[in-house]
């Protein structure tokens, strides 16, 4: 386990710096040598999903250049990781591009499947609902979607089950999409908002104090809806929970 790179998606960099901080601190506490390449920008997902993949060559190649020299690239966003893994087929498949696509990880996936850790000695005395990011769940196979038969295992649930004093509350619909969807949230704002309202209501009904996820973008959308209705339910990125009170073992 040599040097790993921290990939902080553009909107987390600008709007949710605390999620980047928590991810960095957590990885350092786990003993990793973490580098934050300071010239990183954006993976290009917002443009790709809007149908502008043809405009993304430079963005994707820039991304690869920033990260190709590390043993692993870790990010607190399953959706952005999925974009790099799944959609970077539109640029020339050089060895660097292939390498980056094969070695970019969503945070929980990296902790559970590469570091093989479950219990991070974190503590979070709250009722927490897991919101599954669709791109993590189905795009990165980070868990078992409800439409596939075979239990409800997931990386994020594995990690949260080991957090002291945290109780996981379960919504009626285990993995219904929140309705964010990038430009969908603007282009189809009526459907997007309705989906978000239904999703947050499901968590509120079960008494969740917090909704957590591997993706801050879903949470930004849900948070906007919760705040508008003056709800007491809050959102928190999973990295922020896992980084809480790591007592000395």
């Amino acid at each position, binding site marked *: 386990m040599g040097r790993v790179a921290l990939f902080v998606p553009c909107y987390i960099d600008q709007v949710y710096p605390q999620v980047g901080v928590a991810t960095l601190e957590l990885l350092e506490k786990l003993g990793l040598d973490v580098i934050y390449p*300071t010239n990183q920008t*954006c993976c290009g997902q917002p443009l790709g999903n809007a149908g502008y993949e043809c*405009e993304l060559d430079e963005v994707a190649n820039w991304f690869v250049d920033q990260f190709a020299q590390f043993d692993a690239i870790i990010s607190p966003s399953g959706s952005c990781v999925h974009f790099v893994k799944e959609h970077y087929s539109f640029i020339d498949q050089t060895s660097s591009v292939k390498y980056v696509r094969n070695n970019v990880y969503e945070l929980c996936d990296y902790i559970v499947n590469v570091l093989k850790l479950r219990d991070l000695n974190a503590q979070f005395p709250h009722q927490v609902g897991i919101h599954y990011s669709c791109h993590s769940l189905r795009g990165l196979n980070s868990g078992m979607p409800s439409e596939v038969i075979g239990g409800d295992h997931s990386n994020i649930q594995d990690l949260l089950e080991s957090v002291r004093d945290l109780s996981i509350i379960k919504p009626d619909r285990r993995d219904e*999409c929140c309705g964010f969807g990038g430009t*969908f949230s603007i282009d*189809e704002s009526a459907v997007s*908002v309705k989906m978000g309202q239904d999703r947050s209501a499901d968590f509120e009904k079960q008494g969740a104090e917090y909704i957590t996820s591997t993706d801050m973008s879903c949470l930004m959308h849900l948070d*906007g809806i919760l705040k508008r209705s003056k709800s007491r339910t809050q959102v928190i990125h999973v990295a922020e929970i896992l980084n809480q009170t790591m007592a000395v073992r």
Partner: protein
Amino acid sequence: MNHSVAAEKFIQDTPRVNWHDKAVWYIREKRDRAVAFVPEWEELRDAAAAIKGETISKLDEYLVQFESRAKENGIIIHWAVDGEAHNKIVHQILDKHQVQLAVKSKSMLTEECGLNSYLEGQGIEVVDTDLGERVIQLAKEDPSHIVMPAIHRKKEEIGELFHAHLGTDPGNNDPNYLTEAARHHLRKKFLKADAAITGVNFAIAGTGGFVVVTNEGNADMGVNLTPLHIASMGIEKIIPKPEHLGVFLRLLARSATGQPITTYTSHFHKPREGSELHVVIVDNGRSRQLGQKDFRRSLHCIRCGACMNTCPVYRRSGGHSYGYSVPGPIGSILSPNMDPEKHASLPFASTLCGSCSTVCPVKIDVDKQLYKWRQIITDKGFAPTKKTMSIKLGNYSFSNPMIFRVIGGLARMGMKLLPKSLTNLLLIKWTKDRDLPKIPKRSFRDWFLKRERVK
């Protein structure tokens, strides 16, 4: 019409959209329970996808084989290049037999071709005999779902409709009562009809026979009471051998309605004595879809509707918002092949959550095809919102860290400093029903650089 505009209208009636979402989700849950009884479910999906993949790779051979076997059986085969040709062929056959009333069991292909209105224009009465189809026919609407065409209608509304058209008691919305009334109404039509039109669920190349599945037995009623049976099928309905049927029949009903099997699975191999059996084989854009590597797999579709039931967007926008005979995720990847400009908004009517692909019994990569259609539609200049300038700016700034940081910083400062009314104006679509996140003083990168300096 743009999907988002139609969806917004549908969503304005909150109790109705909640009811629609729950009604459709109920079918998805029923499907989950039915599927849980089949331990080899995923293997069945693999087998079905493999059979379909092999079949469409040699579709020309299988179609010709089907034609020659069917002819040997005494079936009359017709080929239609598009919907118009299909309608003309059907009309010619009906005309030759001087048909005045035709009974039709559910067929999405005839919806796609607009057969009913064409025949009515030619003075032939067509009565849909599937209960849901009959409901929307009386209401003069298009189906909003391919398996449950009247899922958008509440029983109270059906009660009113039947009161007006079938003379049922006013205010009586009991489903059993209404179904019984429809049964008597349809029986009269069956006895009067001169011809039966059906769809085709599976056509078997090796035997020249075909299979039609229904829950109401209405296909059999029509076919067995009239001297003329016309079956319309898309070219993708072929399967090579009878033994492949078992794979698809096990998948179809469970995926569609959560039933282990449909009530009726009717096999047709040759005309009944004293009657004629015609099969119209329709292309209507399918061979063009077959020629596109990225979209070929959409021809696996067996029209189960599971992708609609699982789709969080479909459930909250209703089938009519798609403006195409096949709504929902599968319709959103089939319709751009027919007219990419007219249906330009449909591939964008998705969060790309991917649940359609995992639920699909024949493993169509629906979400990936939605993404690919977006690229094509944007390239053709049909994208629902024109974003060219900001997109170019995005590309420029994302590949230039200096500019990216300046823009990011300005945006953050702007959001903090500008009056809320102005930022709201800028982000009106976001902020209509959602608050904006609180904007931090500094970016993660700024925090990081400061930490490095302190180190």
